[in-house]
């Protein structure tokens, strides 16, 4: 087991199951979200969206809207105030290469749903009504939104997206080895376009503070990105802009980039010199980023016993006409299995849509789905058990980078997951297991996600009453960050969780990165730990300096912070309460900061990844094709687990989303109109309670040294591989191999 955070050698909170510290605020409505903050002079903006996907605006008639009592202003490209003109200024922290979308910039329409006007009124209902009166005339051109039709135009992105590894150079001779292999699997795979659909719609409330200052409540996964964007786009000084986002009603990546409602709210607030709120409708939530359509081909060549001789994984991803969005789709195929001949490619093709955006485990959900269905196909081709096949080709090092893994406990995931699931009793023959009228299918797949860390800082303030406040600017996007930081702080200083308050999501707090990539626990967790360790040092020095100090002549490395006291390891008689130290020294507050970032030497030496093994049981009505996912076991290797309860919730959410990806989620494009048509939660299906039955989560022991706490992150690994496991279970049940997800009744009946 990884070592404790507490100096006694045993943690009180870290590693245990703890309820969310922000839970009561959320379930009682006290937690306020970006669209719920207000100001005395608040005006309301409502967005008018383009009905065409490509072309230009030929006329805008806003007279009827402006005539509605209560309407303050209708902003369009014809009357908007000037903003920055260089692309550079619009490129936020995670922008892909290209020319970022600018709302109300000119008459050009780049995608269906593009904002073409903002109606600002004294109240929301007036703004909404007036928006329906804005008349826009277009000169429409035929849009291109069908990726398959663009296949021949695919290109390698000339400029790589920061933080996204391009495919590694090929090694060995994958085509030759494939041709020579006695057993071959080569198939196309596709996952439908998905939208994030967080519960909370995107919203920005801009409070006009006077004297040129604004306070912005924004739906963003990290205020740092909004802060920089506003400063660059509107030419404002950062100190004149404060951004807050204390709570997020789900992000899943949709809140990584500042979205157009922020731009419009700030634009309007500055133009009117008053506070403005813009909230997007559920339909408008389908007018920006999404998980892209990707055409994939996976070709596996193997020897008769299943040993991989060749892996090829080729992907063509849709992107917009203005940015080269990139994610890691194919590299996983070179990391997960040990093969001497590997060739991976990743290209883009442009569509008349908005730019795709990172969506929970971006790239991995798509790429690992294809790879892990292909591996199941290979298991059948070679007559191998799917786990045995994966063990046979188990990678002991990351051959895409030529490095050992920082840790890889995937074998334990296979073993413990299979045991819990009862995998050994599986009859591998398709259609061999049934329960009444239902065919029973058992499938499994592997999941993988990179374990990342970002530069982060944190502050810690201890007051005379023994209460500790820690925090930084990162966001808790619903993952449990408030809770784990509270646990870490409490254990580092030996305090009770009730005596610790964590503050997040405010540019006035210590600098911290966006919440994404499953890096928050490692990054901000370590920063908080270090800030608290600094406080511990200060406290210890104060305590030792007291007259007749019980800690006299004790070295700091023997000090034990536990139960609100500073004690001495191995000497229970020597101890002093922290509050007594503060009182005796006349200290009102003690402050400290901590920072943490990736260890360059370690990064150079090791590849850090989380892994999982997902086991799924489906029951499918034989005649009607109705699929029920009756059991899932997800066994996770993710280093040290900080909070068993919030960690389990992360995996449950990932598995549910994976089931949705496998069976339900699909943003449907009408290629004639170039428009997503099922743009609401009635017609865009995500799983409902009836779709979800038993989900069992296992965390296998894994000691990792990628960061000081041994934490690898959990936000994404739960979804990766789940869709493939469902698809593989469907094959086992029915004998039908469906390679285009979601698997719906029509595909099963075909």
């Amino acid at each position, binding site marked *: 087991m990884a070592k404790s955070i507490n100096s006694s050698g045993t943690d009180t909170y870290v590693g245990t199951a703890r309820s969310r510290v922000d839970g009561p605020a959320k379930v009682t409505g006290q937690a306020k979200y970006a669209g719920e903050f207000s100001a005395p002079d608040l005006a309301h903006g409502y967005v008018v969206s383009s009905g065409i996907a490509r072309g230009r605006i030929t006329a805008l008639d806003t007279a009827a809207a402006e005539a509605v009592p209560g309407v303050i202003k209708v902003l369009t490209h014809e009357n908007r105030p000037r903003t920055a003109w260089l692309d550079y200024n619009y490129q936020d922290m995670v922008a892909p290469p290209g020319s970022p979308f600018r709302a109300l910039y000119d008459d050009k329409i780049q995608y269906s749903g593009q904002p073409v006007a903002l109606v600002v009124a004294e109240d929301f209902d007036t703004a909404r009504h007036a928006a329906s009166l804005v008349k826009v005339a277009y000169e429409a051109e035929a849009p291109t939104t069908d990726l398959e039709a663009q296949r021949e135009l695919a290109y390698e992105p000339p400029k790589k997206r920061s933080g996204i590894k391009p495919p590694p150079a090929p090694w060995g001779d994958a085509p030759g080895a494939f041709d020579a292999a006695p057993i071959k699997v080569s198939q196309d795979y596709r996952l439908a376009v998905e939208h994030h659909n967080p519960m909370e719609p995107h919203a920005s409330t801009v409070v006009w503070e006077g004297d040129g200052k604004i306070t912005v409540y924004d739906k963003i996964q990290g205020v740092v990105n909004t802060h920089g964007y506003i400063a660059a786009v509107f030419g404002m000084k950062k100190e004149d802009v404060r951004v807050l986002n204390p709570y997020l009603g789900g992000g899943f990546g949709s809140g990584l980039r500042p979205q157009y409602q922020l731009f419009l709210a700030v634009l309007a607030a500055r133009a009117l010199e008053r506070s403005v709120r813009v909230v997007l409708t559920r339909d408008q939530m389908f007018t920006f980023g999404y998980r892209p359509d990707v055409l994939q081909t996976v070709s596996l060549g193997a020897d008769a016993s299943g040993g991989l001789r060749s892996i090829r994984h080729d992907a063509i991803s849709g992107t917009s006409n203005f940015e080269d969005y990139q994610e890691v789709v194919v590299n996983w195929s070179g990391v997960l299995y040990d093969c001497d001949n590997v060739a991976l490619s990743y290209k883009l093709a442009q569509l008349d849509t908005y730019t795709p955006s990172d969506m929970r485990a971006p790239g991995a959900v798509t790429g690992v789905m294809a790879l892990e269905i292909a591996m199941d196909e290979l298991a059948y081709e070679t007559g191998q058990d799917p786990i045995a096949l994966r063990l046979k080709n188990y990678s002991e090092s990351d051959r895409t980078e030529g490095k050992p893994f920082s840790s890889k406990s995937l074998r334990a995931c296979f073993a413990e997951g299979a045991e819990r699931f009862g995998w050994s009793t599986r009859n591998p023959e398709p259609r061999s297991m049934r329960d009444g009228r239902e065919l029973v299918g058992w499938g499994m797949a592997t999941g993988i996600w990179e374990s990342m860390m970002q530069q982060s800082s944190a502050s810690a303030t201890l007051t005379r009453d023994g209460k500790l406040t820690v925090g930084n600017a990162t966001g808790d996007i619903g993952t449990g960050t408030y809770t784990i930081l509270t646990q870490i702080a409490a254990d580092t200083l030996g305090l009770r969780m009730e005596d610790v308050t964590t503050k997040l999501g405010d540019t006035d707090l210590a600098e911290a990165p966006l919440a994404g990539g499953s890096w928050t626990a490692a990054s901000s967790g370590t920063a908080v730990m270090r800030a608290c360790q600094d406080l511990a040092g200060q406290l210890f020095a104060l305590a030792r300096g007291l007259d007749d100090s019980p800690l006299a002549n004790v070295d700091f490395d023997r000090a034990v912070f536990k139960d609100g006291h500073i004690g001495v390891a191995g000497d229970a008689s020597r101890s002093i309460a922290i509050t007594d130290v503060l009182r005796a020294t006349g200290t009102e507050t003690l402050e400290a900061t901590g920072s943490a970032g990736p260890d360059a030497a370690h990064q150079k030496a090791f590849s850090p990844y989380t892994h999982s093994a997902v086991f799924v049981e489906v029951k499918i009505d034989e005649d009607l094709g109705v699929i029920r996912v009756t059991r899932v076991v997800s066994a996770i290797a993710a280093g040290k687990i900080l909070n068993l309860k919030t960690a389990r919730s992360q995996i449950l959410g990932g598995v549910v989303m994976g089931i949705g990806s496998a069976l339900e989620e699909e943003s449907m494009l009408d290629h004639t109109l170039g428009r997503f048509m099922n743009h609401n939660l009635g017609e865009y*299906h995500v799983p409902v309670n009836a779709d979800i039955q038993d989900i069992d989560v296992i965390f296998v022991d894994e000691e990792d040294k990628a960061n000081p706490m041994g934490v690898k992150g959990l936000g994404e690994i739960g979804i990766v591989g789940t869709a493939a496991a469902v698809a593989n279970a469907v094959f086992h049940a029915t004998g039908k191999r469906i390679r285009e997800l979601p698997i719906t009744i029509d595909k099963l009946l075909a």
Partner: protein
Amino acid sequence: MNRFDYVRPETVADAVKAVAGGNARFIAGGTNLVDLMKYNVEQPGRLVDITRLPLDAIAARDGGLSIGALVTNSTVAYDAQVKERYPLLASAILAGASGQLRNAATTGGNLNQRTRCYYFYDEATPCNKRLPGSGCPAIGGLNRIHAIFGTSPSCIATHPSDMCVGLAALDAVVRVAGPEGERTIPFAEYHRLPEDNPERDTTLKPGEIVLSVDLPDETFGPHHTYLKLRDRLSYAFALVSVAAVMTLDGDTIRSARFALGGVAHKPWRDREAEAFLAGKPATHETFAAAANIVVAAAQPQSENAFKVELTRRALVRGLSQAAAGTPQSQSDKRIA
């Protein structure tokens, strides 16, 4: 959403007067109308709130049961008499929407809810039902969920209700009032096919209001079912649904009625197939033959040919459930 006038009459006569002339709509639960107003699909100049009208009772009538137009879907589904005498209706209601929606939605409103066709709801696109003469992009577009029976070149939308499919199989009668007084409409004639006027969903005349839905004096014991197939296990509109009732003499079908949901602009009845079933043995072969009669009339679109086969299979299963007296549960998602 536009600005509108709002009135709340206390009597049916006043309600009929209030809705006359101009662009007025009745509103009760509002579970569909308010959505449509938010999408600018409906832009009424006046809303006539009918929730104070005395139409909220379930009462005996002509040996059957009369369900007032304002009785909520939940109230109907959990009503002791309905559960006892018309369990098919209770089951059909519980197959639809969510608990929250059923608590607000009313019987009359359910009859008058509008299609869930993507294009109908999106004012950025053409739609003959929303804007007559503008075209139908669903034809040749996204039509996986659309109709396979009774379509026209102007519209391929389906009626979304589950309750109405049950009412169609039960041969209910709709009692309405209007400027010219009261009248009754057999359920099969209440909804219409799109033909050249897809903007009209029903045969209600201008200004008419639904007073009640009356169920005939019939019982089927356990020989009924509501089987709904959809893209997730709850809270989704039917791809295909089957409401069936049957009377049997031993293993022989005396009479059978069924209606299909999710496949047409109205709950779809097939009298020829129903007549075929009478006097036949209640076997898989009989049901398959009846299903073949039904699907012979199917005219699928570019994306929904699967509905033909799904209809065939769903009907065979639904009739089997009704014959066996093992109606589909709406809480146990395993199909009986």
